[in-house]
């Protein structure tokens, strides 16, 4: 068959397919009921619910998938390309993504921005250009939103350490402040923000206009010998952070103009076993993972991914989840996991649901009350998990 004739045949076939899909197609003659014709449309979703969880696809998947923890069903996706950071507007109206793209894919002009998405349509509303941001990924505390939802703080490392401040109401970049020797941000309402520092102190950064006044607490941990995991938790109602170190020491810090840092306690001692140590050749239970802990704020229970190993195994996935009552400093429950998990979050609901994922990207939903695995979702994403924090 001549090539031109073949092309014509294919074109006719394609046209035929188009006709099949069009309203002129006749209904089958031998049935009573006729299936309704359909048109393509686009769904919307409700603003985020407390039982939803948001899973960053990480290095391998350029999106953050939204799942309903009750049903295990996916609700939608927000585009979060590799090394982007995701945050939720406290009022639930927007999703924010701090991200970096280049004008020609992986080359050309670098563009850093906070992208603003409508939480119901998941459509992009606008982009707020930034002078820069760190490229690292898998961190909750490099892109944080103030409790009132008006300000975003974006950590930058160029490799000068600093923070870019964004007005989320005007959707404008405000200023860049230097933050020498510190990173891992937490909101500090009415003050600005706070951060952890390499000298083992907690920095309080008071923002006045475009100026930053940085003060430091006395050093309280060793950044080299027993570091605090930089994926710590923040409780906006108590204005308090909970920190966990590689050996398993748990600190709490009340934020304000001058922070108050609690005396730490050992998670292992809280479970009735010997505390974790930095010494080599000591086999013990240690905390580990990328996002190794989650705080259920209403109950003050901390859920920690734990594994058996030696010191410096802090990225290892957890084989158990330990539930710590922070008030009594006791481990009230140890749950064995069917598969090792690397990230953990918990819904801030009266009946909490645990959300976890492993390095292969499968996510599970566990009912804390019954211990039942409610859902397992393959290919959910392998990186950070976020939940709504209603206050």
């Amino acid at each position, binding site marked *: 068959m001549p090539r031109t004739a073949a092309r014509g045949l294919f074109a006719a076939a394609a046209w035929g397919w188009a006709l099949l899909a069009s309203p002129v197609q006749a209904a089958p003659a031998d049935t009573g009921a006729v299936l309704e014709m359909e048109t393509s449309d686009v769904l919307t979703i409700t603003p985020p619910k407390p039982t939803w969880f948001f899973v960053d696809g990480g290095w391998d998947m350029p999106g953050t998938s939204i799942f309903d923890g009750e049903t295990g069903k996916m609700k939608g996706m927000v585009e979060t390309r590799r090394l982007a950071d995701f945050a939720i507007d406290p009022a639930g109206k927007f999703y924010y993504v701090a991200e970096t793209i280049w004008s020609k894919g992986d080359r050309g002009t670098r563009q850093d921005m906070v992208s603003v998405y409508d939480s119901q349509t998941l459509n992009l509303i606008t982009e707020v250009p930034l002078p820069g941001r760190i*490229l690292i990924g898998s*961190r909750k505390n490099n892109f944080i939103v103030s409790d009132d939802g008006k300000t975003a703080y974006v950590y930058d490392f160029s490799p000068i350490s600093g923070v870019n401040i964004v007005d989320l109401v005007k959707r404008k970049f405000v200023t860049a402040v230097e933050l020498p020797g510190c990173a891992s941000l937490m909101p500090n309402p009415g003050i600005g923000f706070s951060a952890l520092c390499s000298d083992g102190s907690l920095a309080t950064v008071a923002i006045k206009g475009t100026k930053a006044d940085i003060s430091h607490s006395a050093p309280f941990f060793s950044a080299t010998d027993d570091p605090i995991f930089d994926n710590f938790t923040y409780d906006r109602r108590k204005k308090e952070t909970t920190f966990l170190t590689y050996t398993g020491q748990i600190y709490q810090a009340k934020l304000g103009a001058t922070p108050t840092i609690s005396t730490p306690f050992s998670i292992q001692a809280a479970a009735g076993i010997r505390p974790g140590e930095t010494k080599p050749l000591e086999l013990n239970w240690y905390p580990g993972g990328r996002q190794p802990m989650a705080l259920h704020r209403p109950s003050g229970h901390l859920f920690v991914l734990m594994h058996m190993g030696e010191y*410096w195994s802090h990225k290892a996935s957890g084989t158990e989840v330990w539930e710590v009552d922070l008030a009594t400093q006791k481990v009230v429950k140890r749950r064995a996991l069917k598969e090792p998990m690397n990230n953990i979050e918990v819904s801030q609901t009266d009946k909490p649901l645990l959300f976890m994922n492993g390095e292969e990207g499968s996510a599970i939903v566990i009912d804390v009350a019954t211990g039942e695995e409610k859902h397992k979702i393959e290919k959910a994403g392998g990186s950070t998990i976020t939940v709504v924090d209603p206050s």
Partner: protein
Amino acid sequence: MKKFDADAMGERLLRKLAGGTSRRSMLSRLGAALVAAPAFPLLPVSRAEAAKPDRSPEGKTGFARNAQTKDDTKCDYWRYCAIDGALCTCCGGGIHSCPPGAEPSPVSWVGTCINPDDGKAYLIAYRDCCGKPACGQCGCDNTDRETQLYMPQLNNDVIWCFGTTSMEYHCSTAVLVGSAS
């Protein structure tokens, strides 16, 4: 028993640096993040100290006990005690060489690794090779003395492609910078 001391290490680097930079220059504000290499001389080496077998805690980690010196395309090769990423040795490059078309980052994070053949501790600069897509071969993630982001020079998750024409991460090398003693 001498423990690994990042502060002392950083101080040595910064003292070297201080003579040649103004206080307000960008370099002086980088702090210890500048473990960079081509710009800096090798660290001072105490030959007497280096001659002794290492009995320090660094030599007793799970990684150090099982490390080997023969095959630099395996995650347990001794220099990889704190590497995270694709090994350039598996991507067309070498232990201190970027694959064709990639560009080495002038700055890096560092590890202190024990060579099992001589029992000594060495400072290793993990310089990323940049400007090409992620290689994907021989992914490793070792964490001896690896810290968190507020101590970035010892953190192995940061994309260290600074000062390169593209910040796209391709693979990681493990350059021997000097003795860590």
